[in-house]
């Protein structure tokens, strides 16, 4: 089986992290975002994943070389020379997705973290016999998104309504599709929107079905949602494979610690914390609701909450980092510094406190 992941653009909302790597390679819960999706696809029998990219192809291609061998799955790139929207890339990758077997293929948006219930999706798709299945998720404020209006029992999609002004439904497109090869006949090689042009056509032919995504769903394309997403992910991990989470008297709630990370004495870690490979957390440190990325060092007696510490950064002794502080790659916060929502670009040294949310270039 095959899959296409729409990797797309510049990831500007996740800056400063995306100033160092393209968005799919930004770590989430200690591994590159896109790896979560690729592993889940492999588990359900996908043998080839095509990445539709249009930015920094060299970096992505290097990543592929490393992971293809490790994962035992074929990974290729389909590079857009001009932005093709959300459907155009499928037409571009047509030859890679159709192999004559008539098997359906997956299409995923890259920013989305969830439990990837692909086996259930395949089952549902086969049972309704339609042309395409999309996964939808329930949200509290549907008018911020595109709402999918569907029949509750059969899942048959009636129509899409973009940012509806009155309540028409509370299910939105979760960015996971299973499509029959015939869908590709509906897509031209030009900038096209799958929600505005392709799916409405299939719905009109009564051949589009939707399945409600079980479990959590989060678009982690911006820092606030990234932090919330980690909480949901770890909570889901607690239910499925609790052995992966850290334990001990210094751990509170759900905490993920990479095996190569080192934690000192007298720390209190959690809830909702991820500590990446090679990190060093010195003694007396308090961490809550934060991500510490690969190679970072958190020095003694410091306190970090609701923040993201970028690769190879350091947080000084007695520093206090909170309120959506995002440190880019190789940022060094001096001892005793306070950061309230500082957003710091890579390769900076912070020598004075940041009292209110501010971008430090």
């Amino acid at each position, binding site marked *: 089986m095959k899959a296409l992941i729409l990797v797309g653009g510049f990831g500007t*909302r996740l800056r400063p992290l995306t*100033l160092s790597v393209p968005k799919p390679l930004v770590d989430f819960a200690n591994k590159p975002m896109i790896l979560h999706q690729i592993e889940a696809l492999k588990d359900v029998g996908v043998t080839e994943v095509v990445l539709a990219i249009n930015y920094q192809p060299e970096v992505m291609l290097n990543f592929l070389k490393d992971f293809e061998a490790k994962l035992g799955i074929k990974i290729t790139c389909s590079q857009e020379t001009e932005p093709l929207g959300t459907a155009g890339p499928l037409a571009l990758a047509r030859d890679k997705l159709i192999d004559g077997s008539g098997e359906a293929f997956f299409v995923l948006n890259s920013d989305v973290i969830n439990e990837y219930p692909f086996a259930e999706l395949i089952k549902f798709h086969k049972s309704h016999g339609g042309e395409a299945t999309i996964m939808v998720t329930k949200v509290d404020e549907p008018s911020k998104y595109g709402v999918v209006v569907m029949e509750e029992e059969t899942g048959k999609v009636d129509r899409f309504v973009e940012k509806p002004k009155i309540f028409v439904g509370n299910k939105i497109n979760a960015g996971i599709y299973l499509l029959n090869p015939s869908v590709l006949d509906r897509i031209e090689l030009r900038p096209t929107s799958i929600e505005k042009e392709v799916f409405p056509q299939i719905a009109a032919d009564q051949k589009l079905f939707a399945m409600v995504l079980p479990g959590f769903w989060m678009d982690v394309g911006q820092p606030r949602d990234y932090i919330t997403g980690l909480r949901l992910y770890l909570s889901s991990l607690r239910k499925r494979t609790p052995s992966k989470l850290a334990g001990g008297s210094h751990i509170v709630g759900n905490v993920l610690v990479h095996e190569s990370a080192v934690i000192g004495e007298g720390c209190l870690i959690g809830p909702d914390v991820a500590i990446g490979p090679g990190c060093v957390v010195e003694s007396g440190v308090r961490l809550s609701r934060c991500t510490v990325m690969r190679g970072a060092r958190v020095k003694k007696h410091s306190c970090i909450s609701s923040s993201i510490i970028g690769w190879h950064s350091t947080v000084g002794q007695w520093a206090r980092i909170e309120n959506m502080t995002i440190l880019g790659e*190789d940022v060094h916060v001096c001892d005793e510094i306070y950061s309230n929502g500082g957003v710091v670009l890579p*390769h900076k040294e912070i020598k004075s406190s940041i009292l209110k949310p501010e*971008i430090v*270039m």
Partner: protein
Amino acid sequence: MGSSDERVVAVIMVGGPTKGTRFRPLSLNVPKPLFPLAGQPMVHHPISACRRIPNLAQIYLIGFYEEREFALYVSSISNELRVPVRYLREEKPRGSAGGLYSFRDYILEDNPSHIFLLNCDVCCSFPLAEMLDAHKIYGGMGTVLVIKVSAESAHQFGELVADPITKELLHYTEKPETFVSELINCGVYVFTPAIFAAIQDVFMQRRGKAELRRVTSFEALQSATKSIPADYVRLDQDILSPLAGKKELYTYETLDFWEQIKTPGMSLKCSALYLHQFRYTSTHLLASGNDTKRASITGDVYIHPSAKVHPTAKIGPNVSISANARIGAGARLISCIILDDVEILENAVVIHAIVGWKSSIGKWSRVQGGGDYNAKLGVTILGESVAVEDEVVVINSIVLPNKTLNGSVQEEIIL
């Protein structure tokens, strides 16, 4: 003037990518030394000035950037000037004098009688030939270019005291807390090859001598020992300061303009200074407003030959327009740098701004800065490929590359 034995080598320090984060967001797309001021890359201005030195044998650019970033520029400028220009990459930070010392074999290859050392991010008239003449008369090991500034601003620089008659450098101190002198170090020097012996002396003295020095906590944690590495030698503190008053170092004062180009805002100011200087040195580079078939020009303006400017646009003063830019009908540009491939649509207004490569400015939109070159948000900067939609107003803001602005913004940094 100058016998055939007197060869001169010039060395220009260009810095590196993780230093100078103050030049962001422009430095996210181009190494600072290659950012254009008055239509020419920043490093081009000192390089051009070096041409006026008699018997110039070679120019070296020394920095931390990858060689490939400078390869194209260096080969084309060598061709154009008919002087060999070569980029040398520093492997690790050794301080300004340490870096110079590490390349002494290259520099001394031509057996030069004099060596110029310039900082790339200095904007001035580079009176190098006059400085060399003065240096020869003084007969010392080195001569420092100096300028008088206001007493209030002097503390930001290296302050020096010079003998008013002999011009000898009597005292030097870097960024002092109390007032020492209004004369400051311009970052342009000429030395005899004896400078290398002086630097070597510093290494010798360092060995076995514990040095007490204020370090930031970050620096202290970085170095394996508590002292600076033996091969880290700073020109100012380790050479100029100790040798002051020993009849080795002299000063040459410039009465022209001088600025440091540390931030994008300053690059706009320095671009204006160089444009103004073109009136005296290269009038052919300035656009003239005499042709009625072409756009209306006021003040100093540079327009690349491949740029297209609509005849009803009004450009200037202090505007620099780079290659393949397109300026639409009725546009008004004042005090700005328009980079390559920018498209400015009809009736747009750009004032006190830098518009990044491939950006587009919509119809009737207004991109404006307050004009305070030193303020963090005093000049509006648009990074590469920024799209400002029709009728949108952008004031005193910095926009990182690849963003689209469909609503007005003021006093904001947009990542």
